[in-house]
């Protein structure tokens, strides 16, 4: 907003005091709740997930597994992923302050991939063979379920400009909205026109 840059990026919807900026949606991204690939659990209810992050459910035995503390990981304050997670899953409940924090999707995935008792949330596009995405309320997060609006934990990726994009920026944005969509889909994101 102080015109330091031409375009800014956001991975969460704008807040009220930011609405003076013009937002252009370039794609959508699902947020997947993930566990270690060896974890026998395949799905949880959104309520359970929120309970874990609120500190109400702390042991895997409460979810039907072994008697072991849940190593939950969240993103840091200020993260767009966390903001969307808080809006769509926590729904106003606060994330417990005993929960571990990492400052990137990649590092959350790393920990979940190596700690058998971990549970975290990451961008769907970053899910790979080393972690297992859980079904939320019975729906698996995939590109199809997001397109068909069955999986609802989705947030928009935005380009933000101060008013109409300036002439040197507009061609870039046009590219992203047309041919660039191919690149976005390759990374596991959902195109804006889908």
């Amino acid at each position: 907003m102080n015109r330091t840059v031409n375009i800014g990026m956001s991975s969460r919807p704008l807040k009220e005091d930011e609405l003076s900026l013009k937002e252009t949606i370039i794609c959508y991204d699902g947020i997947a709740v993930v566990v270690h690939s060896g974890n026998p659990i395949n799905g949880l209810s959104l309520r359970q997930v929120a309970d874990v992050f609120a500190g109400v459910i702390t042991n895997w035995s409460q979810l039907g597994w072994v008697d072991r503390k849940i190593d939950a990981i969240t993103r840091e304050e200020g993260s767009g992923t966390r903001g969307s997670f808080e809006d769509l899953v926590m729904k106003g409940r606060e994330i417990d302050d005993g929960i571990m924090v990492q400052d990137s999707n990649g590092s959350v995935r790393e920990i979940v991939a190596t700690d058998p008792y971990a549970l975290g949330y990451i961008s769907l596009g970053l899910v790979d063979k080393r972690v297992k995405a859980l079904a939320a309320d019975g729906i698996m997060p995939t590109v199809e379920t997001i397109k068909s609006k069955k999986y609802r934990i989705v947030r928009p990726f935005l380009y933000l400009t101060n008013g109409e994009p300036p002439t040197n920026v507009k061609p870039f944005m046009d590219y992203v909205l047309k041919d660039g969509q191919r690149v976005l889909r390759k990374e596991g994101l959902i195109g804006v026109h889908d």
Partner: protein
Amino acid sequence: MRINPRVIDTAVKIGLNGQAFFTVAILVVIVAVIFVKGCPYVNLGFLFSSPEDMGRHGGIFSAIIGTAFLCFLSIVFATPLGVGTAIFLTEYTKESIFTKMIRFGVESLAGIPSILYGLFGFIFFVIKLKMGWSVLAGVLTMTIMILPTIIRTSEEAIKAVPRNLRIVSYSLSATRWETVTKVVIPSAAPGILTGIMLSVGRAVGETAAVIFTMGSSLRVPTSLMDSGRTMAVHFYILAREGISMENAYATALVLVLSILFINVIAYYIMNRVISRYS
């Protein structure tokens, strides 16, 4: 029951021996692990190609350039400032409140943790002075960071120059500056160079201050205002996000070898000083 002091003596000797051995073992293990896991992936191709696909493939060429760019320029700025300060403190003034204040400034700067340099550099250079994430912001921050080390080591080196040399020079009616430049500095040069090399070593491994000022762009920085990454930053990102364990170990190896190499040079220079004066 009193234990024979000789027995205690031997026991202590074994205990201390063991602990020293343990400490060295830690070092050996660290270096060995990095070596063994990184070696297979370090080759000329790795060193000369840039990272591709966010670092999953490709080499670390751009990071090497970024590191070199940052460290070289930081030394260029910090050396005159640092050596000049050291000369001032030793040759041009007597101990006074003024010098005490300056030393206090230097010591305090030395104690500031790198994240605070990162915090300062980010908000001051990158944002307020609108440099953006750039080599320049990184250089300015890094210069201040290594300044205390250069001042300290230069001062020691200059102080170690025997007084006789100066006295002889003055008796030949050389001015103070002539004495400094033609007599003192050349004698102190090895010690000063050691200090510079040590600073470079530190700058190469520095991450917190660099990532917030120079940024982490994957491209080769070609101008001062370009962002770029250093090997340490690249390693941090690779390791932390699990992008590529192989490349992480390989980068770590190159990083540690570079620092080892720099330390060896510094040590070699230092040895020349010792042999010259003993």
